[in-house]
């Protein structure tokens, strides 16, 4: 077996990223928009799985880019743009989760009426909107703790290495690897359990 290919960005991408980062720091909108072309879709996809909400994912993606652009001077010379952008997006998503959690106090009577209406609802973490046919992958992701979900998606969907995740989340590489490993194990167990139950 050949050694595994190095993950993360390849050399061309790193070179492009450095060129763009340097140009962007001088608030060159055209150059920054090259970043938008490069990273918009992957970031939106990551946020879609993190939040499970397409509209929220789109809003957070826009907000993350605008925030990154307004703070581009704060990007350190040796810091890559992509992890920095994802950190901004992650912080925005966490803030949004906290904001929605505070709002999530509902009367029991209302809840019972809601549940009675459908019989068995899946309650979304945000606003009681229910989606009985939510796809299985999202259902399993929603059952992971936020910490594991973040790590899993950063590694397996966004393609960051464990060392990049460590820098991004401000934790040690060992802790990042532990999170990813535990998240994969939990994801696998839940996914196969749910998939088996559906087949029955």
């Amino acid at each position, binding site marked *: *077996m050949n*050694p*595994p290919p*190095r*993950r*993360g960005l390849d050399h061309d991408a790193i070179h492009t990223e450095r060129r763009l980062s340097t140009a962007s720091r001088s*608030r060159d*909108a*055209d150059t*920054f*928009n090259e970043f*938008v072309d490069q990273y*918009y*879709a992957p970031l*939106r*996809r990551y946020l*879609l*799985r993190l939040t499970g909400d397409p509209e929220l994912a*789109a809003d957070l993606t*826009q907000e993350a*880019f*605008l925030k990154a*652009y*307004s703070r581009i001077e704060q990007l350190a010379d040796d810091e890559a743009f992509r992890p920095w952008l994802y950190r901004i997006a992650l912080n925005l998503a966490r803030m949004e989760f906290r904001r929605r*959690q505070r709002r*999530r*106090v*509902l*009367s*029991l*009577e209302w*809840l*019972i009426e809601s*549940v*009675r209406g459908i*019989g*068995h*609802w*899946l*309650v*979304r*973490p945000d606003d*009681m909107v229910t989606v009985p046919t939510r*796809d299985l*992958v999202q259902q399993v992701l*929603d*059952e992971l703790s936020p910490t594991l979900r973040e790590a*899993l998606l950063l590694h*397996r*969907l966004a393609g960051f*290495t*464990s*060392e990049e995740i460590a820098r991004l989340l401000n934790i040690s*590489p060992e802790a990042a*690897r*532990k999170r990813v*490993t535990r998240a*994969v*194990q939990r994801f*696998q167990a839940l996914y196969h359990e749910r998939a088996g139950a559906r087949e029955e």
Partner: protein
Amino acid sequence: MRECDVAAEELLAYLDGCLDGEREAYVAHHVKVCPVCQIRQAELEETKQLLKVSTPLPNDEIERSQLKAEILRNPHPPLPRRRRRPLLMVVLAVLLSLILLWPADSSANLQLGRVVRGVVAQVEKSLLGRREPPGDRISGVLFRDSQAFVPPAELPLGLRLSDRATPGPRRVESHYRSESGVEILVVQGPADQGLALGWRDVELVYVGDTEVLWLKDPRRGNVAGMAWERHGILFELLVLNAPQGNEGGLPLEETLLIVRHIIAAHDAASSE
């Protein structure tokens, strides 16, 4: 089954290309012959495929164009305000020094103490005074008399009351544990304060005529919590620990026994 001398975390470091040369060579050889590592690697790959295939890159051309137009329209957005923590720290340090260096027996010091106590009293009055609803204080909790209820000291499954707390004026928490390691928390509050919902999967069940929300544990048939309302009190039963069965978890039937017991005791107390 999963025993080998390369931890899952090290395998991940290898796949990420984060190992040094010697260790990388060792793990590369090991992975070829170790079925455990091969399974782990396959699980990592399968997880990646599941996520990627089920989440195609979105068709975002319109959104992206709007964003780019916004950036071009406003090429110099205002910089975010810098936090003024250093200045705040200096101010706090000066204040602290003044307080510490002030002569202990000076009349000014006594005056300062009175001012501080007065401010604290005003803040307490304005913040706490407005919050307290009308009612009598019962065990530190503001319920109306008719709502006062002390949950039983013992519940089914060998659960015994181990602690009781009133963390807020409208909240009582009763903590139960059994010798087998089951731990639950029964929370009471006025029904009008609502339920902070942290569960994604909910079903309605009945205990007699009481509608009870079953807050489901991810393990099928298990309970993460229960919530019901009775005589103006909102009850939440939260399963903190249930090391039962092969995988753990508190089954629905057993939890309903506990709920039934609490409801019966509550009804009896309310009719007295």
